[in-house]
């Protein structure tokens, strides 16, 4: 049998719809991860020891339990407590919670790398703690950690393929259907592998451009 990827041509529209769903889920999960990550990072760098410990425990748990177990926990568990939400929402929530644990590590090191003089100056200027965090600490921390946050995003894209196990027909889920329809699983999955690699490659190029743009004032210091 010859390798013939052209059998995929009639199914491109269907796969495109799946890819769109993957992009949507990843975009929402990225926002969710950043929100969760910023919150956890704030707790991990706070002055309260209890808050620091709780946040560290969160990161420890969600980094050391496989994502598929977390996903099943939410997908099968939430209806049990009367929350009936669809697979897409469950997937985005699970991705945000797990991604948030990874993002918080990145944002935390971004916060710790901030020159303390900047914070002293803000305090002397009479800014409130909330304003200092949202207007000074967070923007600086997010800007310097564009590149590591980019690897969190790439991991989110790869991890989102696991959402196909909870009946969500994103890119991998659609490919499974196409493979069953055409009886050509080798072509379908080989092409899918290359699509994912190309997608993450494109994202990493975009991240590098964004990183350079955001840190252009540093003049190559953070090359």
């Amino acid at each position: 049998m010859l390798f013939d990827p052209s059998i995929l041509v009639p199914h491109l529209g269907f796969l495109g719809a799946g890819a769109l769903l993957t992009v949507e889920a990843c975009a929402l999960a990225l926002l969710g991860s950043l929100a969760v990550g910023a919150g956890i990072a704030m707790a991990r760098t706070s002055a309260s020891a209890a808050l620091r410990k709780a946040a560290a425990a969160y990161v420890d748990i969600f980094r050391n339990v496989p994502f598929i177990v977390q996903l099943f926990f939410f997908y099968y568990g939430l209806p049990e407590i009367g929350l009936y939400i669809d697979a897409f929402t469950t997937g985005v929530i699970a991705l945000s919670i797990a991604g948030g644990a990874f993002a918080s590590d990145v944002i935390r090191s971004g916060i710790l790398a901030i020159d303390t003089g900047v914070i002293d100056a803000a305090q002397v200027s009479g800014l409130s703690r909330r304003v200092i965090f949202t207007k000074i600490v967070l923007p600086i921390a997010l800007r310097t950690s564009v590149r590591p946050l980019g690897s969190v995003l790439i991991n989110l894209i790869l991890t989102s393929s696991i959402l196909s196990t909870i009946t969500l027909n994103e890119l991998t889920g659609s490919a499974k259907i196409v493979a069953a329809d055409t009886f050509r699983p080798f072509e379908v999955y080989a092409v899918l592998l290359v699509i994912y690699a190309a997608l993450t490659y494109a994202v990493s190029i975009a991240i590098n451009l964004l990183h350079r743009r955001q840190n252009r004032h540093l003049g190559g210091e953070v090359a």
Partner: protein
Amino acid sequence: MRYADFTWYDLVLLAQGLGVSLGLFAVTSLFGLALGTVWAVIRYYGVPALTPVIAFVAELLKNSPVLVQLFLVFFGFPAFFKLNVTPVEAAIVTLTGNTAAFIYVVAVAAIDSIGRDQIEAARVSGLTRWQVLRRIIAPQAAAFAIGPLIGLMVNQLQVTSLISVIGVMDLTKIGAILNLRTLKPFIVWTAVGLLYYLAAKLIAGLGWRLERRLSAHSAWRGL
């Protein structure tokens, strides 16, 4: 008639699943370590034709979802090459390849971390190429690589949970079976998550002890 309560036998099932997960993790980590190291050594000697192929394959494996790689091996290979592939064989092949791709990166960095002057000095002193690799490069590269390797191993343990999707009776699959029978998702997935968590901590702890031994030569001994 469905027997929905938990029984003592369920603990045996969970232990069995954990054994399968840990066993496959150990086997594929060892194979992956060997394969990834061989790839890095091939790169080190700059074997023509092979080096760019290895770099490309490693990049492809690192930047695509493990789930898609599993589907390609389990569904694609039998259809295309007319082979019989059992779920366990597919899991071993896929996880070995995936682990090797990540180990390749660590091993390349570890080999590059050793100064050329050391290798030149060793060659001038009359050591053979094999002796240089065995006596000069390997011990120092191992001490350099052990830190990143521990993080990688903890991550690869979680990746093994994906083989449940192609029907390997690992810990996650046992969790899915118990979940369907008892319909108590919170208890089942918490127990499964806890077992993964403890296994991850065990691997991290063993790795830490190994790291201390490998870097004993450079440890601070006091004055």
